[in-house]
């Protein structure tokens, strides 16, 4: 089948970008979206043109690298999939396809569709460590955790850090990402000792990176390839409010850091 592609081309964060149109004339419905771009790039290279830069790695939906907004939806029209898991059978012959990078101030464009998502890494780093006893590994199931709680923590931990939530959010907010990263530890006994400091520090870092604020549009959970629910955002709000109240409790005893 044949497609008309409109792709964002931008040399780097300092230059302005623009949409450039390409004809993809040899598209098989069995190709993945990234394979379709590989074929386009091979044609561009053969012609001596600059290939389209895009991030990709595992190509099986677990690394979160393949960031592109396809026809206005991060990772394309199919729910609960990354771009690499999207196949060309989701499109019809003659379709026009718009491909753009994640757009957010904290995600500067490296080139074309590749953006720098280090801001998300810095939010994770701000969460700090968890207290664990070193030495011999503990027995399996030594810490009792209710099935519902461990399931919920796993739902949050499914986040692959792709940033689709930020790309989908009309406010460019990273609340769903941060909420998932706060929650998967805050739900579990292993994350309990640093619970308050974790949420305070991660939210502070999220704000410092320049992400927008949550207005509860819920576009993020629709775009999330791992279907992470905005109930984790409610949980993070709850954790932050509680942490800030407890921080007040300790205000008399000098520094409040260190949990």
């Amino acid at each position, binding site marked *: 089948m044949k497609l008309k592609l409109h792709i964002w081309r931008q040399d780097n964060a300092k230059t302005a970008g623009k949409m450039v149109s390409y004809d993809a004339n040899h598209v098989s419905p069995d190709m993945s979206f990234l394979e379709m771009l590989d074929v386009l790039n091979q044609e561009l290279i053969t012609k001596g043109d600059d290939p389209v830069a895009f991030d990709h790695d595992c190509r099986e939906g677990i690394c979160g690298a393949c960031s592109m907004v396809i026809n206005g939806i991060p990772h394309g029209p199919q729910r609960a999939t990354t771009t690499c898991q999207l196949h060309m059978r989701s499109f019809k012959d003659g379709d026009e396809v718009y491909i753009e990078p994640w*757009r957010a101030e904290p995600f500067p464009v490296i080139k074309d569709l590749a953006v720098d998502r280090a801001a998300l890494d810095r939010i994770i780093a701000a969460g700090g460590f968890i207290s664990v006893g070193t030495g011999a590994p503990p027995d399996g199931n030594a810490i009792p955790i209710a099935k519902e709680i461990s399931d919920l923590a796993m739902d949050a931990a499914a986040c692959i850090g792709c940033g689709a939530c930020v790309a989908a959010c009309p406010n460019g907010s990273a609340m769903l990402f941060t909420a998932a990263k706060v929650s998967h530890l805050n739900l579990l006994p292993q994350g309990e000792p640093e619970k308050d400091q974790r949420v305070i520090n991660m939210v502070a870092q999220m704000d410092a990176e320049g992400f927008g604020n949550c207005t509860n549009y819920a576009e993020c959970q629709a775009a999330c390839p791992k279907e992470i629910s905005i109930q984790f955002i409610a949980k993070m709000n709850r954790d932050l409010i509680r942490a*800030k109240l407890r*921080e007040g409790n300790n205000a008399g005893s000098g520094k409040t850091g260190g949990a």
Partner: protein
Amino acid sequence: MTGVLSFYRTSIGKKVVMAVTGLIGVGFVIGHMLGNLQIYLGAEALNKYAAFLKSTGELLIVVRVVLLTAVILHIIAAVQLTIENRKSRPQRYVKKQHVESTFASRTMRYGGFILLLFIVYHILHFTIGKAPGGPQPFDVHNVYNNVVYGFQNLWVSLFYILAMLALGLHMAHGVWSLFQTLGLNNRRFNRLLRNAALGIGTLLFLGNISIPIAVLVGFLEPVAK
């Protein structure tokens, strides 16, 4: 105090201010509508209710100060959050689709602005009696006639109906959203809260617009005092 300010500086802190002041607003608009619907019980009932509110003295002043403070804080936080949100996406998408967000959620800012204009006009209109196109004659002791004369002006009534549409939409998202922001939501309550927000928004819209419509069709008429 620095603790409170450090909380406000976080994105979530400003959201909590939006939610708490919003909750005050929700409580007020529901009570206000229930009070106003007494117009259907006749002029005496409504005027008696109005006289009762006036007779509460200091309490009325406290309520007004709380409401005014809530409105001001709601607006300040909204403006700050909006500025931050705009900064977070300087380069807009060439093509963007909405998947799950509701029309109500996407029009909060515009609806909020309409409501601000409405609140100013509404106070001039029925509290102070000095609004352009307002009821003639205006009599502080005859609220019933003020309402009827006020809504006999078609343009004023249409503006009220538009503002109530904005209010209904604002509530249809806001009531659910405030619980989400305060962290008082989870999988079990989500559907209930979504429906409650939609229900409250719809009832506020229908209940409030019934009054100007009843006046325009001649169901409510001025009474001789």
